């Protein structure tokens, strides 16, 4: 018996959507640009069975991959569960067998040793294959046309880490993928394996090193010369896991470390810089300028996640869970381990930001992300008491001038992660922004498409789903030629 009635946060718009879906020739308000040919692929999660504990993290939700397929101005939608061993074991048992986030000690004994991954974080297209990514396991290959799950992928046995990041970086100059796994040799290990994989999918380089303490290394920065590795605040231990807790807790006494290693360097070449309490969960872009390495990212003052609470028992502090677009500058010629931090825009933003990927690791100008504009109207009667608490705008942040332009989704909507789709042969920032809006009043999801250079003019098109799409973690646009689409 599946019963979500005692899950108070899983109601209304946020009730689990437990179905798979195909919608052909989606309803569209406006006109879909015909030069958009490919697919916007979203990965996220939803609970197929209720979690065993209300303390669990949404990061434990079963992976669900879904795709808006664009062709000749027409959009089809398809959504499928990622059929992991975990998902299949739960289905067979008709209940949740797995315990809290990344803690196998809380699992039902019947699934001991089974891959616990839920594959719910980032879609990746690389080497002509579509993958789902989750940082606690290997990538899972997915059929790009049916979205059915093929299985884990280890790059012909050459990728040795047990885990694979949700944020590999693809160098637009060489086509190489720089990727890594942390807790690479198993649960509660401080090993990181960093890889270079060529555009055909062959591992060409491996670097093994250790981080100052075991922590979440969710994303990295990439320049043409260096890899930047943020380590911050989240801590774990075997003792903690044996107590039945979720994998991470927050330790505000831990400094934030940032490791910088040359892309052709060895473990001995890593230099660790140290700063105050911060959380750099996601990065925007990075570059090397002479002796300086510059990272730009939406950086939180402290713990962003209420479901990974402070280890000292104090309540999670929402006022510190705000991300600001910041620039960290690391001087490789300096003698100490300090670095500078500059806040580039005054408002806090969603940390799920994007840049024009053709400029990744290179000098660039524009960043895109969602944010909450408290000056815009919000209809609380139709959409709940969320005024100022939801991201109602997408912003284009001009890092050269400090100016921004914005797109407003409406007074009953919130916006999930933005995606930038460059126009073919266009200059930086020329193209479309795309992302899914939650329409709380109509209980449905809408894919927004807007001209990235004219955000104030509103959307060009909205692709309407007649239901609530599963929550997204990350979404990516893949052009027609990147995957073997039918």
């Amino acid at each position: 018996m599946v019963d979500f009635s005692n899950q108070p946060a899983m109601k209304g718009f946020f009730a689990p959507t437990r179905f798979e879906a195909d919608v052909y020739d989606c309803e569209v308000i406006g006109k879909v640009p015909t030069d958009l040919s490919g697919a916007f692929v979203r990965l996220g999660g939803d609970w197929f069975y209720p979690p065993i504990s209300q303390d669990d993290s949404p990061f434990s939700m079963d992976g669900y991959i879904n795709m808006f397929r664009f062709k000749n101005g027409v959009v089809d939608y398809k959504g499928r569960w990622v059929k992991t061993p975990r998902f299949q074991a739960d289905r067979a048992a008709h209940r949740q067998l797995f315990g809290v986030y990344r803690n196998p000690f809380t699992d039902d004994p019947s699934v001991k040793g089974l891959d616990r991954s839920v594959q719910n974080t980032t879609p990746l297209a690389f080497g002509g294959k579509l993958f789902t990514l989750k940082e606690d396991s290997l990538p899972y290959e997915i059929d790009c046309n049916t979205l059915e799950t093929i299985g884990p992928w280890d790059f012909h046995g050459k990728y040795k880490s047990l885990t694979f990041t949700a944020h590999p970086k693809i160098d637009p100059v060489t086509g190489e993928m720089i990727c890594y796994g942390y807790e690479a040799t198993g649960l509660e290990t401080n090993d990181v394996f960093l890889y270079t994989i060529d555009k055909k999918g062959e591992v060409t380089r491996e670097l093994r090193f250790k981080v100052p303490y075991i922590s979440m290394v969710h994303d990295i920065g990439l320049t043409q010369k260096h890899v930047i590795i943020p380590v911050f605040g989240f801590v774990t231990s075997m003792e903690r896991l044996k107590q039945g807790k979720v994998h991470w807790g927050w330790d505000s006494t831990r400094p934030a470390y940032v490791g910088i290693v040359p892309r052709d360097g060895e473990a001995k070449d890593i230099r660790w810089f140290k700063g105050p309490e911060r959380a750099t969960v996601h990065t925007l872009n990075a570059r090397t300028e002479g002796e300086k390495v510059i990272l730009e990212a939406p950086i939180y003052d402290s713990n962003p996640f209420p479901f990974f609470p402070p280890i000292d028992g104090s309540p999670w502090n929402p006022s510190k869970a705000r991300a600001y677009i910041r620039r960290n500058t690391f001087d490789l010629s300096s003698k100490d381990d300090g670095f500078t931090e500059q806040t580039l825009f005054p408002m806090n933003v969603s940390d799920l930001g994007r840049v024009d990927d053709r400029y990744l690791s290179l000098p660039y100008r524009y960043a895109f992300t969602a944010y909450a504009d408290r000056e815009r109207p919000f209809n609380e009667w139709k959409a709940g008491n969320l005024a100022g608490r939801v991201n109602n705008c997408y912003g284009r942040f001009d890092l050269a001038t400090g100016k921004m332009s914005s797109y407003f989704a409406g007074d009953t909507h919130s916006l999930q992660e933005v995606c930038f789709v460059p126009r073919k042969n266009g200059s930086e920032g020329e193209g479309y922004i795309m992302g899914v809006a939650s329409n709380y009043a109509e209980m449905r999801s809408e894919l927004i498409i807007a001209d990235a250079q004219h955000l104030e003019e509103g959307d060009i098109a909205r692709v309407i789903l007649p239901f609530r799409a599963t929550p997204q973690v990350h979404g990516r646009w893949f052009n027609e030629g990147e995957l073997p689409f039918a």
Partner: protein
Amino acid sequence: MREKLLLTATSRVTRRSVLGRLAALGSALAVVPFRGLFFRTAFCQQGRLAIVSFHMDQPYLDWSGTAVPYHPPPGVRSAQGVAHLSEEMLRRTCICG
């Protein structure tokens, strides 16, 4: 037979009866506290009091009991206030509203 049933159903749902039911529903909505209608924003589990609050575009459970509660909108399909309505009644309600 099917036509007869439809006729019976149609005649039962007259404009006057719909308005009457809407008035009754409106009265009920007016006297029930807003927060109690749709979500239990505070609840107990194993002796701990939690609040359903909202962060990063989704509700979460605040076990400190100090967060700003999340009150979802009234009148949406999944809300208790209209959960008992048939699809037809819901549509009529929306048209009249």
